[in-house]
């Protein structure tokens, strides 16, 4: 794995490897000192052409827990918004010695352009591109589902897939990179996916996707669902006639209190409710559903850091490095003392920060 651009082309082997590594990273997050020296001296750039504080701080926390140096590059108010091209920005980051670029962009395919051109030689992680993909979101969703699915089965989650799990994803599929990444990844992991949306918010061509499609959320729930994922719906879609009113949307496609109760009456006691956030409470999800014990919203946020640590670790430490588990245990003691001040040390010594660049 050189880049993480999409889940469409992510193999089962690599998907499981990322999820398993994330489990090891999660263990680090539970320690008192939440830090590993694995990426000491490596530079991770968060290149954000679109505002997303949530995703940015998740990647930042992940990189810092691996002791990488982090540069946050927000396109707003920078040279980028003054017309600097993606190419020039990428070449600038390359000159600064970026080892990995975490890119969030409003244009679908922008991470692919960084990876496919010779503008920069760094590992590229797609942190959400336009209406295309958001692979780390799908991985953290899968991680969350896998933990739940394994717990129900009473088996360890490491090495497991999602065979047989019934996942419904409801909302604005047309404009959702989260939905796309989830459909491909869940297919790879063996889950059964049903997309639920008004016909106006499904892309032409969805019939070729490896999933079922429904216009009726109640019918989908009645058929049995193990994970119910709600997608964010932008209010402005209403003005573009995708649906008549937000009220009508909520009634037909929102996860409201009636549907929350229906899970109980349908005997779906183990069904979880997921949301990638940020939520529109009262639109696609009711407050009661969002705050219910079934909700995994906060677990998803927590798992996001572990999954992103795994992605950074696997991309930057190379195919031949020791498995993360070994690194975690071997370095645990040593890192405990050194890691807390590591970023400051690097900042004081630019040679140390950038010296690895010559070697690859």
């Amino acid at each position: 794995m050189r880049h993480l651009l999409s889940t469409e082309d992510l193999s089962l082997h690599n998907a499981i490897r990322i999820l398993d590594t994330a489990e090891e990273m999660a263990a680090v997050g539970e320690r008192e000192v939440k830090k590993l020296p694995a990426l000491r001296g490596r530079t991770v750039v968060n290149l954000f052409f679109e505002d997303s504080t949530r995703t940015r701080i998740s990647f930042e926390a992940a990189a810092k827990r691996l002791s990488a140096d982090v540069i946050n590059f927000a396109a707003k108010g920078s040279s980028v918004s003054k017309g600097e091209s993606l190419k020039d920005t990428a070449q600038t980051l390359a000159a600064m010695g970026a080892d990995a670029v975490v890119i969030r962009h409003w244009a679908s395919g922008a991470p692919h352009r960084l990876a496919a051109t010779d503008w920069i030689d760094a590992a590229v992680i797609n942190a959400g591109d336009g209406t295309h993909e958001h692979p780390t979101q799908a991985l953290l969703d899968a991680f969350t589902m896998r933990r739940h699915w394994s717990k129900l089965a009473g088996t360890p989650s490491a090495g497991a897939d999602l065979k047989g799990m019934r996942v419904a994803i409801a909302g604005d599929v047309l404009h959702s990179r989260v939905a796309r990444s989830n459909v491909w990844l869940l297919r790879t992991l063996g889950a059964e996916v049903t997309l639920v949306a008004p016909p106006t918010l499904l892309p032409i061509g969805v019939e070729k996707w490896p999933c079922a499609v429904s216009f009726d959320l109640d019918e989908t729930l009645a058929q049995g669902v193990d994970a119910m994922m709600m997608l964010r719906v932008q209010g402005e879609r209403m003005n573009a006639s995708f649906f008549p009113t937000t009220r009508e949307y909520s009634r037909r496609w929102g996860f409201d209190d009636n549907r929350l109760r229906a899970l109980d009456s349908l005997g779906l006691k183990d069904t979880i409710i997921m949301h990638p956030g940020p939520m529109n409470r009262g639109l696609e999800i009711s407050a009661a559903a969002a705050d219910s014990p079934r909700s995994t919203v906060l677990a998803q946020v927590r798992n996001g850091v572990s999954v992103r640590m795994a992605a950074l670790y696997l991309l930057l430490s190379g195919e031949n490095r020791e498995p993360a588990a070994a690194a975690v245990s071997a370095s645990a003691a040593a890192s405990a003392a050194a890691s807390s001040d590591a970023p400051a040390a690097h900042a004081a010594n630019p040679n140390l920060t950038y010296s690895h660049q010559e070697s690859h």
Partner: protein
Amino acid sequence: MADQHQNADNSGAHLIRGASILGGAAEDLLIRDGVIAARGRHLDADVAGVREATVIDAAGLVALPGMVDIHTHLREPGREDAETVETGTRAAALGGYTAVHAMANSTPVADTAGVVEQVLTLGRTAGWVDVRPVGAVTVGLAGEQLAELGAMADSRAHVRVFSDDGICVHDPVLMRRALEYVKAFDGVVAQHAQEPRLTAGAQMNEGEVSAVLGLAGWPAVAEESIIARDVLLAQHVGSRLHVCHVSTAGSVEIIRWAKSRGVNVTAEVTPHHLWLTDELARSYDPVYKVNPPLRTDADVQALRAALADGTIDVVGTDHAPHPSEHKECEWAQAAMGMTGLETALSVVQHTMIETGLMGWEDFARVTSTAPAAIGRVQDQGRPLEAGEPANVILVDPAARWTVDPSKMATMGRNSPFAGRELPGKVVATFFKGHPTVLDGKLNTPYRWPVDALDAGPAGRRP
């Protein structure tokens, strides 16, 4: 022959020995004083002019009428960083063209007699091909009021093709009026068929691939609905309509239906739509971004069949050079368009001739005779007979070459065929009897008489 180039005075005579005329039997052509002076199985030395002529051994080569592009973007005036009339027409000559229709979306827009005369003069000063300016349908391509169609028609540029290409004349009343008005001078409205509301922000063909890539879709119906409306309008007012760059199987069906009802409609297909599909967008490489977008393989096959059976009349390149920075970026940021002048012949040979769908005679029809007729270009697209204007090309159909955009004459590096091996190479181009291309390389331009260069107050004297 290389050391006997006759240049500026255009006076050299050339004897083409043994070229396969339109892919048929081998014959000789004597080109002299701007015309085909003689044609025959083996022209004897006693035929006037044969003795003095430079001999070109054309064994194995096909002689065709010079190609006429109904759809070229030369960018000048205004975007000389993308292309100039000089560089674009060099590319045209190398590609086998002796005439190109320069689209109106320059800066300023070619919506007045002054601008079309300027483009005419630039073309004649360059001298590589006949540059036929296209006039805008509406002022500034804004789709609000008719441009000075009559003044452009009466100008020295004798405009007969009117188009807002790049933008659709979507207002049905304005389209009706334009179709009616150009009847006064035997003009034609060339429509860029794209319903604007259905294509707001559109990035690529709407379908299976756009669904996966998350790129906003450009649905086939946005093209087809405009064509359906326009053929009905053309029928209603009895006007001549030309449909630019038809890209979908559905459009082909509508045009076939319209022709069967006697509607005076002609249609064009680009070389890239005869070959490439939207699968290429999976790379997110904007070199494949074009308007109308690359469609599906079913569309490609329908377009080939339509060109072969005459439903589609002509191949137009829609040559659209862009500076590299407009393609070295995100897909959504990138400009739409591809270069085409230097690859058109090869792509049509690959997609239509080597597939057995067409012969070279058909090739001459769709690349020369028919486009010249649509544009009312009197001295182009003519038979290769004695007495006819000598706009002739020689093609080596056995040649194979690999496309390298950096070696092209156009300033545009945005060829979607880069790296592909193509058949067929233009060996020579004769424009008004003068060889603009010899041995597959640029020779010298044709020199127009000085009074032909004078474009009046708005023009530029050489």
